[in-house]
Structures are given as C-alpha cells and as structure tokens.
C-alpha cells in the first residue's frame, strides 16, 4: 500500500512537471452570427486581450504560449453550438472554453459537450437563473451575474422612476423567460403591478400585433427583455409608431449603440441596465481596449476578459492546463484572500501564483464568484438624454 502511494505521488510529480512549455489553446465560443452579433466582436476582443497579455508575459506554466480559437455559438441554435464546442475539444484540443454567450446554448454546450469531456467553461454573458442550479461537475463558471439579481436591480430602477405598473415582453427563450420571471417577481414584491408578460419571437418582419396586445394590457412603461439585433428593436419600433408606449426599460443586450443609432431621441427618458462596474479595473480595461482598437464599454466585453483571465490563472495555480486539475482552482484565484489583481497585471498574478502565493482576481468587472461559481453582480444603470446614452450610476 505504501509503495503504491509512493508510486502515485511520484507519478503525480512527473505529470506535474510534465507541464512543460508548449502552446495552450483556449476556445472562444460566442454568437458571432445571430441575435447578439453586434456585441460579440467586442467580447471576443476582450478575451483575446487577456490571452495576448498572458502569452506575451511567458510566465504561464514554464513559458507556455496561449492561443485563442474562435467558434460560433449562434446564440440560439443549440445544435450548432454543441457541434462547434465538439470541434473545439476534439479537433482543436482546447484546454478551456470562454463561452457560451446566450443562456440556452450555454446550457446545451455544458450538458452535451463540457460535462462528457470534462471541459471547463466560463461564460461571460449567460445570465439565466436556471444555470445556477444546473448540474455542472464543477466545470461551469460565469463572470456574468444570474438574472435573479438583475431582476432586483431592474425592479429597484422601475420603482425609483415612480412607475406603478409595467408591461414586460421577452424574447422567447431560456434567457428571456428567466429574466422576465425575475423582474416580475421582484417588481410585485416592491408593490408594483405587472400588467402582462408576453413573449415575442425573434426574426419577424412586423411586431405591431405583439405591441397591440401589450398596449391593450397597458402600463406606465414597457420592459423589453430582448435582443437589439432582433425582435427587441422591432417591438420598440412598433410601440413608438403606434404611440402605445414611450418609456422603456432595456436590460442587458438591448443596451448598445445600435439602440441609440436606431431610435435616437425617440427613447429619451427611458432607462437601461447591463452588467458593469465603475471599479478602477473597468477604467483600466477600457483604456487597454481603446489601445487595442475596440470598445471596452460594450456589454460583456469586460466579463469576457475576466473569463479568459480566470481560466489561465487557475491553470497556473494548479500547475497544469488539464481541466480536471485546474477546475477546482477557479474559485480560489477569483476570490479573497490574496493580492488584488487588476486588468493588465496578469503577468504579476502569474508570478505570485508560481511562487506559491495567493491572488484575489478583481479584473475588469470586479469579479467575485459566489455560490455555484457565478458573479455576484454589478450593474450599470443608463438613461437616454437628447438621443445619447448617459451612465446614471452603478449598483
């Protein structure tokens, strides 16, 4: 028995030191086509920024380089997302995946590919509350908060605006339904009234019928839990055209420059929110993003940087790029105690970990992983004035 233990220990040492310099691949699976295609380029750029930073430092696992491999999750087609994740693992041989983006495809990737293959996935943007309780074998994390939290934030904002009743429309999928339920429950808890919560299908040419039903139910404002490149904008267009609603609340993916470009002054006085912080980390990240030529304020871009950074830091802490080994380290590097790590300090973090120290990764989105490995949640509240998007505050 003792001999066997010794042998195992020796083997472990050998395999640990076998983590010699090489090329580690990280999958970046986001919806480069589909309903949030206008957001994903900035998200991927965020992840690739972290990858480039680590690669250049040469400090990861005895000087390994890291390469990002992009794959298309399509955001809505679970079959396509699963196939793309399969490809990342079997033919690209990635050691971790930043993704998926939308909740439905992320759940499918987790259950059909990540769990059977023992692959670590960190999603920067899947926010469905259902993912908190999904079986994940300790492989799934997210730098985005669950919508259970966003529901509270939105209910607070609506209440502060003095709205007594609101109508909710959501994109007909896991994400939309989860968020709508959460907003509804929280707004009612705060004494508000939800006149209707109706789903809308994406990809239609005309949403006047859907808006007709929403208008019939009435309400002081309309919450549009949808996608800006899809039905969400169609709903807003029809609501404005028929004069059914002129005040809106836009969660998550609706908050984008596209929205301002499409509706300009017509949505003045409306509000929106998306995950984000005013932490020093966010400002640092935005500066780094600008130097690289992409928009670091774009939704989920900071979260993507953090997702990629966490995977690589966990690898360093475990001394291995094997998902089975580093998966248990993700929570450890993300949370206190330890030296606080800002974006741009990944090389320093890698060195501390190598020397056996502990870090508390703060990163671009003030990461704090709670419960089943998801972000505690910081939100940016925005409003629209004179056809421009203005940040109100952070919650």
């Amino acid at each position, binding site marked *: 028995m003792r001999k066997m233990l010794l042998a195992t220990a020796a083997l472990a040492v050998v395999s640990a030191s076998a983590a010699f310099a090489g090329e580690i691949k990280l999958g970046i699976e986001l919806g480069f086509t589909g309903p949030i295609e206008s957001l994903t380029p900035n998200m991927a750029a965020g992840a690739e920024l972290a990858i480039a930073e680590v690669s250049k430092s040469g400090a990861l696992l005895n000087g390994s380089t890291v390469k990002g491999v992009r794959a298309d999750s399509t955001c809505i087609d679970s079959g396509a997302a699963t196939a793309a994740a399969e490809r990342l693992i079997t033919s690209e041989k990635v050691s971790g995946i930043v993704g998926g983006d939308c909740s439905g495809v992320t759940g499918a990737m987790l259950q059909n590919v990540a769990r059977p293959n023992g692959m670590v996935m960190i999603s920067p943007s899947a926010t469905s509350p259902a993912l908190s309780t999904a079986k994940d074998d300790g492989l799934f994390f997210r730098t985005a908060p669950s919508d259970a939290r966003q529901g509270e934030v939105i209910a607070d904002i609506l209440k502060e605006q003095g709205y007594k009743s609101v109508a909710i429309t959501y994109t007909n999928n896991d994400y939309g339904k989860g968020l709508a339920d959460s907003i509804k429950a929280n707004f009612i808890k705060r004494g508000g009234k939800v006149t209707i919560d109706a789903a809308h299908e994406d*990809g*239609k*040419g005309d949403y006047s*019928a*859907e808006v007709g039903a929403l208008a*019939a*139910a009435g309400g002081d404002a309309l919450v549009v839990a949808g996608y800006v490149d899809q039905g969400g904008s169609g709903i807003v267009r029809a609501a404005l*055209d*028929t*004069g059914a609603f002129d005040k809106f609340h836009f969660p998550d993916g609706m908050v984008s420059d596209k929205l301002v470009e499409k509706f300009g002054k017509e949505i003045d006085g409306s509000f929106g929110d998306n995950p984000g912080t005013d932490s020093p980390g966010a400002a640092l990240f935005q500066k780094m993003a600008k130097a690289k030529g992409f928009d670091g304020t774009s939704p989920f871009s900071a979260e993507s940087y953090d997702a990629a950074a966490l995977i690589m830091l966990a690898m360093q802490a475990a001394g291995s790029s094997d998902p089975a080994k580093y998966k248990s380290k993700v929570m450890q590097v993300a949370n206190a105690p330890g030296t606080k790590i800002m974006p741009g300090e990944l090389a320093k973090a890698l060195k501390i970990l190598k020397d056996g120290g502990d870090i508390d990764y703060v990163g671009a989105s003030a990461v704090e992983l709670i419960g089943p490995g998801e972000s505690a949640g910081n939100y940016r509240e925005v409003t629209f004035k004179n056809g421009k998007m203005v940040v109100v505050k952070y919650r």
Partner: protein
Amino acid sequence: MVDILNALVVLANFVLVPALAYGSQLALGALGITLIYGILRFSNFAHGDTMAFGTMIVILATWWMQKAGVSIAPLPTALLALPIGIAVTAIVVLLTDRAVYRFYRKVKAAPIIFVMASLGVMFIMNGLVRFIIGPKEQTFADGARFIITARDFKHMTGLHEGMAIKLSQGITLITAVIVVAALFWFLNRTRTGKSMRAFSDNEDLALLSGINPERVVLIIWIIVAALATIAGTLYGLDKSYKPFTYFQLLLPMFAAAIVGGLGNPLGAIAGGFVISFSEVSVTYAFKRVVTYLVPDSWAPDGLVQLLSTDYKFAVSFSILILVLLFRPTGIFKGQSL
C-alpha cells in the same frame, strides 16, 4: 359618446389602419400569384422570393440615390428607385422563364411539374438574394415617418387615445389603388389585356384566333415582376426588409389568392383583405376597446384575445383549409385546385 370615439380610435390604431396597409400589400402580392395561375396555369412558389429580389434591387438603387443626394423628401427615395427595381426584376424573371419554364411549356408538362420547377427557382432566388444583400435586416426608408403621430392626434382631437398613421401606410394604400386601377384598365380596356384574358379563358380558342402565346407570356411576366417589386417595396417601407420574412409572406399571399378564387384578379384583392383583417383581428387583444364600450363594472380583466399573436400564421392556414374544404373555387369564382 366620447367613449365610443375612443374605442373607435383604439380599434383604428391597432386593427383597421395596420390591416388596411397589410391587406393592400398582400393583395398586390396575391395579384401576381393569381395572374400567373390564370395565364400560365401553375402556382408560382417563387413569388415571395421574386418580391425579395425586386425589393433588394430597389434598396440598392435607393442607397445609390441617397449617396448621390437625390431625394424627394418627405416621400421616401425608394419610390424613385421603383422603376429601376421593376426593370431589373422583369429581366430576371424573363430569364428564368427562358431558362426554366419555356421548356416545360414546350413539352406541355403537367402543372405539378411547373410547381416543382418554381420551387427550384425559389431556392435559387433565395440564395441569390442572400448572396447579394445578405440575410440580415436592411433599412432603406427615409423621408417623413408619419402623416400624423399618436401624440399629435391626441392633441388635435382631445381624445384620450391616439391614432398614428405612418406615411408608409398612406403610400401603400394610394399606390395599391393606382396599381390595381391601372391593371384592371389594362386587362379590360386594351387589346393586349383582352387577348390575355382570352388566353386565360380558353387557350386553344385564343391560339386559333391568332393570339401569339409567347407575347402573352412575356407581358404577364413583366406585369408580375412589377407587382412583386411594388408589393415588396411597400412591405419593406412599412415594416422591414429581411429576405426570410418575404419567403414567409408566401403563405398569406397564397391564402389570399385561393380564398379570393385562383385566377381571379378581383378575388385576389378581396382575399388579401380577408386574410389581413382576420390575421390582425383574431390575434388582437380587445381589452381596451371593450373597456371603453361597456360600463365600468363589466370591464374585462383578461386581454380579450382570441389567439396569441404567435399563431398569426395559423390563421392564414385555417382560412386556407376552410376555403379549400367548403368552397374550393374561392369567394369569387376562380379555378378550383
């Protein structure tokens, strides 16, 4: 009294005005289908994608004009680009006729073979449009958006409810009236139109009396291209342009043509409005309208909605099936299927 007016305004805003505009767009589309059926005797499945193609050309021309600074504000530039769209589409459908349908006419193929051939043409058109302009939504509407906005209407009338009429809805209606009037004048008053109707009624007799069939076919394709381009452009201006939604329009357009009686132009127009009004009113939530009309204590809690808006296409399907079961020739006498 004020309540009744309010109820009427709500109804007009959400049902009457949108259904009238949508109905006109469907009617123009269904006219194209019915003409092909009447003269060439087959159901043209490629019609939706012909619309998408025509509209695409109009959009490209509109963009070019916008860049060149051409404008007829407050009217949308797309109206100016229409002739270009019609011309290019006419050339393309004539080419498909040359390449595909003429062969089947020569061998006197059965109608079902024509239908399958048109399905093939549909897929090619489908791909062509996506290849040139992409599958995404395109915006090309410019000029004024509204004839009257909901807010102005409230202000003007002092009513509690507003009614918005979009410029695109007004243009749709006027254009549809002009196009239909021109078409009927052509069919009933001109020599060519009469020869076409003769050809449609009895091909053999028409041939005997010296009507050139290839000329009839040529003209019908040009008319169909014009109708498809106009219908598609109006739909795109009023709603949005996306190739896939044009493909989806095929169902309500066929339903309209069949309900009215295939091969009967007047029926296609009536069918278009039957379909649009049923689609819109069956899926509309009448809560607000009812609340105005009944005493307060009777006001409904529910939405008073027969079917969720998700079932919009089911309405066209149901009407289609009912008509085929009980009156296969349609409301106006058309050919039975």
